[in-house]
Each structure stands twice: as structure tokens, then as C-alpha cells.
């Protein structure tokens, strides 16, 4: 029988439907409250995610990591409960935790508005007007929470197997209808589906263990599992994790083999100030996705001097709860977070959120100091030089950035390009379409010309014309071959870029 996920906004009858369903079918019942309780037991302050949804602060790295941990706990809790037997889960969007598991029945409940309003008025003692506003706010927050945590629109009904509108249907009858559908063979577990769930569980357990161990808590790790083989990929600058990960995961239940690998490609982005929402972040994330790479940020302040010369660069903001926090009140460490630091953390958060974070560091000083901060053991695939020397005038800034780019290219074993070039390389706009079209037309015309005049071409290459004018063949080949190759290259590279296969 399937795992039944009942999703609904609060006070909408979804939880009651899920409970009735579990009772009718004799299934175990699990709700989001249980998952949140389990996460809190593990020291994951889920309330921070909830409040952030309401107060909508700028995204922070801390929240992105918190989200990953919450998702791991939620996945493990649901999978473990489902492994004990059949299960009905009630929550906001739990079914997104089990992609690839086919014995899942995804039910969305649309509440009956008046009844929902009555419930809220009765429970909160608010006036109907205020209760109406409260419901609108809660619904908007929950949509935004699902978007942030799962990256999907919870109101996209294509993502459900069954949508139940309680406007003309009682909860009891709705439960009966779901019971009938749950019995259909389409939702029965298959060996492949069960295996997919085991893999999800294994992956989630590994993620939790790594998140709860202080040695690996703040690392940017990718966790995958296949046939009981757990693969942990870490970023090159966190090489020390190679020995830590096996220690942390040595007793991971269900793990037949543990592989610890370093990410194969890395993109280094050097810039003086990182601005949240900048288009470059999106372009680099897109490129990193195509390459399967991680993006490492290096904030370089050429006009400043490191306070302690040779000191290791500061690590980015860390995450997780502090073990010493008493009663939920942490130690009062004075924080002087500037707008610049905040923007840098936001840029890191965006990368963590997209699963492409290669970490970040700040460096101040001359260009030799910058090169010394770049780890020579990391096999960068690309170094992108962004806006630097911001205190200088435009002309000086351009010249100094160009000089630094050349200096880096001489000292780093990776292609170094300015940010403007990155945009030009990735863009596929009207100019690129026109270029592709013109090159394609010219290429077709060239081949058509050659094939429709084969006799003439052969005459020039090896016929009577060649005997009379031997240099003619050389001239023809010297013109046509590079032209054909050039056009071919433009068309092929443009098509590959269009297909995002560059």
C-alpha cells in the first residue's frame, strides 16, 4: 500500500482527513508536528525557519544550512516510520521529500472557506475580519515556506495525484474516496520503489550524522547513495574532511560502502563587493550547474591591509546551534556585521541554497597576497574576475582590473576571465541568434556551391585547370577550408550553447 501524503494549509480540515484516513485504513499516522519535534530534539531550531518566513529577512547562509538539516530529519523520520508499515502523513508538502518513490499517493486538500474561518475565529477569538486577514497571511507564508524549503509552488496541482475540494464534500466521504484510490495497483510499492526509499533514508541519515558532528557541521557536502554505496563529495578547500567523514559515518546503518570524493571542478569568483541579487550570481550558478561545479567566492579588498599579515582567511558565517545555549539564549558575542559582510553572506547563502557552494573567504592586500590566498592544490576550471578597485576612477579601475587579470592568468593554472566576458560567453540573445542564423546560411550556401559545382571544383583541384594553373588548387583550398571550418565552429558552438552543453 502507498504512503499517503495529505497536504493542506492550516485549519483546513487536512489533518482531520489524514487522521480519519489512518484510522479507516489501520495505518500509522505522522504529522509535521512530529517531524518538527524530532528536528528540535536533534538541536535543529526549526522555529528559526518559521519566523524567517514571517519576517522575511534577507536569505542567510545559516538559514540555507538549517533548511538542509530540517529536510534530512524530515526525510529520515518519514522513511523510518514508513519502513515500519503503512503510513499517512499530514503536512505542508512532505511528498517532495521522496522524489523517485512511486508508492506515494499525493493528496491536496482545498478547505471550505467559511468553515475554516469559523474554526479560526473560535480558536483565536479574533473578529472575522482579523481572522480573514490572519488566514491570508498564514497561507501566503506557507506558500513562501514551501517555495523556500522545497523550491516548488505548492499550488501547482500537477504535483498531486488527487485534489480534494471540501466545498461540497464532507471530510468523512473524502476519506472514503481516498481509501478507494489508495487501494489501486498504481500506488502499490514495487521493488524499485522500495529501493528508492531505502536510498533516500540512507542519504538522509548520512546527512544528519554529518550535520550533527561538529567536525563536519559547517562543511558544504553533497551526499548521494546508490545501491548502499554512500558517496560524500566535499569541496577542494575542505580537504581535511577526507579523514573526518569516514569517522563520522563509520556506523551508518545500511551503508555497505563509503566513498569520499573531492568535487572535480571549481569556479573561483573574485570580487570586491558582492551584491545580493546581482545577475552574475545567477550566471555563475547556471554555469556551475552545467559543469557540475561548485562556486567559491573570494572577496578581495585591494585597498586594505590584513590586520594580521599571513593570518588564515576568515571562514564564512557558520551555522547550527551553539551547544552552550542555555534556555535558548546564546552567548552575547558582539557582532559587527557590516552591509558588505551581510551582502557577502547573502551571496554565500544563495550558493548554499542552490547546492553549489564552494565556500568563501576574504583577502585584503596586494596582488601577491591575493595569489597566496588561492589554494594551488585546487584544480579550478575557471577564475572569474569581477568588479575590483571600486574606489578608483572608471579608467584606472578598468586598467588595474585588466592588469590583475593578466597577473592571475600568469600565476594560476586555470583560465582567468573578466566578468564581462563571462556574460558574453553565456548569453544567447538576439545577437547570438543572428550570428548562428547567418553562419548557418553561409555554411549551407558554401556546401551547396561546392556540391553543385563539383566538376569545376575537381577541374581546379586535379583537372586541366590544375595542369595549367597548379597554384589555383592551393588558393581554393586555402580559402574554402578555413571558411568552412570557421562557419562550422560558429554553428556547432552556438547550437551547443543553445542546448546548454558548452
Amino acid at each position, binding site marked *: 500500500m502507498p504512503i499517503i501524503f495529505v497536504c493542506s494549509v*492550516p485549519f483546513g480540515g487536512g489533518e482531520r482527513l489524514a487522521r480519519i484516513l489512518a484510522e479507516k485504513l489501520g495505518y500509522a499516522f505522522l504529522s509535521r508536528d512530529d517531524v*518538527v519535534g524530532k528536528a*528540535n530534539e536533534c538541536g535543529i*531550531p526549526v*522555529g*528559526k525557519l*518559521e*519566523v524567517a*518566513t*514571517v*519576517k522575511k529577512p534577507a536569505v542567510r547562509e545559516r538559514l540555507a544550512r538549517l533548511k538542509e538539516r530540517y529536510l534530512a530529519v524530515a526525510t529520515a523520520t518519514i522513511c523510518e516510520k514508513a519502513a515500519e508499515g503503512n503510513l499517512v502523513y499530514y503536512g505542508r508538502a512532505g511528498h517532495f521529500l521522496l522524489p523517485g518513490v512511486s508508492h506515494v499517493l499525493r493528496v491536496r486538500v482545498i478547505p471550505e472557506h467559511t468553515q475554516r474561518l469559523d474554526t479560526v475565529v473560535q480558536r*483565536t477569538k*479574533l473578529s472575522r475580519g*482579523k481572522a480573514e*486577514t*490572519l488566514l491570508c*497571511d*498564514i497561507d501566503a*507564508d*506557507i506558500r513562501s*515556506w514551501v517555495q523556500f524549503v522545497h523550491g516548488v509552488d505548492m499550488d501547482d496541482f500537477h504535483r498531486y495525484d488527487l485534489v480534494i475540494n471540501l466545498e461540497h464534500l464532507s471530510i468523512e466521504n473524502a476519506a472514503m474516496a481516498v481509501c478507494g484510490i489508495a487501494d489501486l495497483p498504481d500506488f502499490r510499492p514495487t521493488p524499485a520503489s522500495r529501493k528508492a526509499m531505502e536510498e533516500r533514508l540512507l542519504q538522509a541519515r548520512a546527512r544528519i550524522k554529518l550535520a550533527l558532528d561538529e567536525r563536519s557541521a559547517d562543511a558544504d557536502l553533497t551526499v548521494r547513495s546508490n545501491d548502499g554505496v554512500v558517496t560524500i563529495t566535499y569541496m577542494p578547500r575542505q580537504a581535511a574532511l577526507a579523514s573526518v567523514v569516514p569517522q563520522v559515518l563509520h556506523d551508518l546503518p545500511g551503508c555497505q560502502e563509503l566513498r569520499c570524493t573531492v568535487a572535480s571542478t571549481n569556479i573561483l569568483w573574485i570580487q570586491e563587493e558582492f551584491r545580493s541579487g546581482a545577475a552574475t550570481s545567477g550566471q555563475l550558478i547556471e554555469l556551475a550547474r552545467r559543469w557540475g561545479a561548485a562556486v567559491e567566492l573570494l572577496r578581495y579588498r585591494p585597498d586594505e591591509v590584513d590586520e594580521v599579515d599571513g593570518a588564515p582567511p576568515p571562514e564564512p558565517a557558520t551555522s547550527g*546551534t*551553539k551547544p552552550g*545555549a*542555555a*534556555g*535558548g*539564549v*546564546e*552567548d*552575547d*558575542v*558582539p*557582532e559587527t556585521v557590516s552591509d558588505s559582510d551581510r551582502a557577502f553572506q547573502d551571496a554565500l547563502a544563495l550558493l548554499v541554497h542552490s547546492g553549489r557552494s564552494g565556500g568563501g573567504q576574504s583577502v585584503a592586500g596586494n596582488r601577491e597576497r591575493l595569489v597566496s590566498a588561492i589554494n594551488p592544490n585546487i584544480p579550478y576550471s575557471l577564475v572569474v574576475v569581477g568588479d575590483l578597485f571600486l574606489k578608483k576612477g572608471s579608467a584606472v579601475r578598468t586598467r588595474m582590473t585588466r592588469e590583475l587579470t593578466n597577473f592571475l592568468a600568469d600565476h594560476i593554472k586555470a583560465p582567468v576571465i573578466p566578468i564581462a566576458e563571462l556574460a558574453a560567453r553565456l548569453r544567447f540573445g538576439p545577437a547570438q541568434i543572428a550570428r548562428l542564423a547567418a553562419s548557418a546560411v553561409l555554411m549551407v550556401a558554401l556546401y551547396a556551391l561546392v556540391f553543385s559545382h563539383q566538376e569545376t571544383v575537381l577541374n581546379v583541384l586535379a583537372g586541366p585547370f590544375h595542369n595549367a594553373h597548379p597554384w589555383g588548387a592551393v588558393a581554393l583550398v586555402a580559402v574554402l577550408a578555413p571558411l568552412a571550418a570557421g562557419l562550422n565552429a560558429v554553428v556547432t558552438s552556438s547550437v551547443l550553447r543553445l542546448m546548454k552543453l558548452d
Partner: protein
Amino acid sequence: MQERLQVLVLDDEPIVGKRLQPALAKVGCDVEVFDAPGQALQRVGEKRFDIVVTDIRMEDIDGIEVLEKVLERWPKTKVIMITGYATVEVAREAIAKGAFDFIAKPFKPQELRDVIARAAEALGFAGVDRAAADDSV
């Protein structure tokens, strides 16, 4: 002399009040700490506090009820909710019922001081830092 900000802190875990009391006194607040909601509400009945900081999940009376009772008695008092079990629903309900702000545990005292500074500003105080300066004179 600048009037000092009167703050009541209520949390059924005594350690919370113990930690927040010096953290808020440092910026010039007169802080009274309670770990029993009943006693806190009795004190609210006797004295007008500028700011009430209350936990939500408590055994006898929950924080939402404290919020309602405080605002019923002193409508201008700013109530700040703190909780380790925050949910969107509870946060929104608290705001709908007039809570000034909502902080999820764990938090640093500075986070609370920032919210208190905003509340003080809304109440027309020169700011908690100003109160601290006066205190030192």
C-alpha cells in the same frame, strides 16, 4: 533625567530570565524577571511596563494569553514573544493580536536588544542606549 525603560521578562525556564536580566540592564532597562505566568500577570496588574518579553509555550498560561491580558490592561505596552517552538501560525496569531515582534530561540541577547530598541523608539523613548548613558552619569 531620562525615564528608564520598564521591562518584564517572563519565561518558565529560570535560566532565560537570569541571562536576559543583565543583558538588558546593561542598556539601561529596569528589568523584572518572572518564571511563573500567574505572578507575572499579577505584577502587570499592579505596574505598567513599557515592554513585556514573554515565552509562548508555558505550562499554566500560554504566551498568547499573557499577550492578550497585558494588552487588555495596558494597551500601549509592547509585547515581544520568544519561543523555541515557533510556527508560522503562532507567529501570525501573535502579530494579529498585537504582539510587537516575535523572536525564535535560540537567539543572542543582542537580537532582543535590537527589538527592544525599536519598541522603545515606537514608545517615544530616546532609545535604550540613551537610557544607558543617563544611567552612567
